[in-house]
């Protein structure tokens, strides 16, 4: 087995033209400033442990950056100090990080981009894409279906970003022409606290709400608290998104208040790391774009997406 692995590593080294037999992979992701990013960091650490144990000579360096600038600095360090053979990056923002990633690619490293695409897709070797429009669409279609084509709905958006816009766009497209009225869509910044307050104000503002779409499970949980306090949990249901363990658990147990959420798994970083390692360890080609779906999670399939230990 040992010979087999080192033989593969050797052929991989020859394939990339790198002199070293060992493979160093840099993983650059946003810091854990909200629940989903916390899950991202957790899954990255777990995947690194698993992959390093499975492949001798593999070294994975994870860096969590607090801003686009910090992330660009981290990329420079990865090339100069750690001399990475491959980079797995979830860019903070697409445009500002395109050139820093290009620099890394020019150093000869293999590039895997996750979730947010770069402004110039020709830089990347692998793109593991999340489907943000689908994220909103799945939630919207579920609501149309469940409400039977009419009803009053409120939405809770995240931090104003491209991701948030795409999700909202998908949701609006899905409910368009269905007879469902979207009464308001405020930003609750992917935060439980903000969602609690925004929901309280929705409850004050609208005497009748049939459903709430929270574009993140953390927000769904905050909103649920406000609905419970007002004693209106029989009036409406919530649809979340992201796939937080606590929400998936509730969905699996047949919750009436949050009967569904949409998968947008922070574990996509692990998928990307697996593919990148496969580039060095597998004898099959792994370049290209891998689209991850944003499927709806209901009580029928929730068990399959449940990770008890995930911090998100």
């Amino acid at each position, binding site marked *: 087995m040992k010979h087999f692995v080192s033989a593969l590593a050797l052929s991989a080294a020859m394939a990339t033209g790198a002199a070293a037999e060992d493979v160093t992979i840099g993983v650059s992701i946003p810091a854990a400033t909200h629940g989903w990013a916390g899950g991202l960091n*957790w899954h990255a650490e777990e995947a690194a442990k698993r992959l390093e144990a499975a492949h001798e000579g593999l070294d994975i360096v994870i860096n969590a950056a607090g801003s686009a600038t910090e992330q660009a600095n981290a990329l420079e360090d990865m090339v100069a100090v750690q001399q990475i053979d491959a980079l797995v990056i979830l860019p903070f923002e697409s445009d500002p990080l395109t050139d820093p990633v290009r620099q890394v690619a020019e150093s000869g490293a293999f590039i895997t981009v996750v979730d947010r695409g770069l402004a110039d897709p020709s830089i990347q070797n692998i793109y593991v894409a999340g489907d943000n429009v689908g994220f909103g669409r799945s939630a919207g279609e579920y609501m149309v279906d469940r409400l039977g084509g009419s009803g009053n709905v409120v939405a809770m958006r995240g931090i104003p970003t491209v991701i948030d816009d795409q999700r909202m766009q998908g949701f609006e497209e899905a409910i368009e022409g269905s007879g469902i009225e979207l009464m308001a869509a405020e930003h609750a910044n992917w935060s439980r606290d903000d969602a609690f307050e925004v929901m309280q104000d929705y409850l004050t*503002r609208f005497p009748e709400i049939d459903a709430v779409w929270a574009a993140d499970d953390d927000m769904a*949980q905050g909103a649920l608290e406000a609905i419970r306090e007002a004693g209106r949990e029989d009036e409406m249901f919530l649809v979340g998104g992201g796939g937080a363990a606590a929400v998936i658990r509730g969905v699996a147990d047949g919750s009436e208040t949050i009967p569904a959420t949409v998968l947008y798994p922070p574990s996509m970083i692990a998928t990307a790391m697996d593919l990148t390692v496969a580039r060095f360890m597998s004898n099959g080609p792994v370049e290209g774009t891998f689209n991850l779906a944003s499927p709806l999670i209901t009580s029928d399939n929730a068990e399959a997406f449940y990770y008890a230990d995930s*911090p998100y």
Partner: protein
Amino acid sequence: MSDTTIAPKRPLRGLDWKMLGPLAALVLLLVIGAFLNDNFLSTANLLNILTRAAFIGIIAIGATFVISSGGIDLSVGSMAAFTAGMMIILMNWMLGMTDVIWLIVLAGIAAGALIGTSAGFINGLFITRGGIEAFIVTLGTMGIYRSLVTWLADGGTLSLDSDVRSLYRPVYYGDILGLPVPVILFALTALAGWVILNNTAFGRHVQSVGANEDVARYSAINTDRIKLYAYMIQGACVALATIVYVPRLGSASASTGVLWELEAIAAVIIGGTLLKGGYGRIGGTVAGALILTLIGNILNLTDLISNYLNGAVQGVIIIAAVFLQRGLSRKSS
């Protein structure tokens, strides 16, 4: 407002623009809110606003002491998050040791009070004995507490066990004679803060240290001790706010209490306390906290303004409130 009568410079006019400014802004916001939405003046909405204002309000009362003494505390938001995280970890851990839930809740509350006050003590110690600027010390502890809570939560969310939470819940959701508990605690803290700042030797010393530390020292005031106590009061206020906060969502994460320090400082300054120290106004701070909460509430209740501009509206109102307070008091004097 009984403290309008002790305005030092304009006793004859009997008017205190420093107090009337924030009150005018408050009334204006209430009128705007009432026009925009019929439910705005409903009891439920007004109680929501008061309850929400309690967190920032209680913290801002502590900040009034620190700022009056010429200091600043940037660490309060992170301190609240760290205290909440430690309380949740302790209570969950105790669940394995004992079945007596009320004991667990009491221990959690006691630990919260101890951690918050100690954190304030540490800030004060570095500022007085260490001789480091308050801005730098609390900027440092702000980062430290924020990282610690992120680390404790593994980047995710710390959640309180549901059994403990159901017993603890009334501390946020309960009410006495129709008034929510957080509102009562906010009122009591404000009252205590007002008495201490205006009617005790300690309160006068806090303001003299803020006005001119050297003069205060020559007047035989132990300035280091006064400042240390001010930061401890701030810590205790953060602890109280956190004790009320934990049962609301039963969780703490890296995003808990983000920017609370700026909201608390804004509430204090809107209320008429001078940022450079020497002059504190508890009543104004309460009005300031209510103004900040009202802005968010009104923006959520209307579609008139694009969501993207919420921050701009807040900025305009903060500056306008302080202008009312300063601009008018300058003209009247």
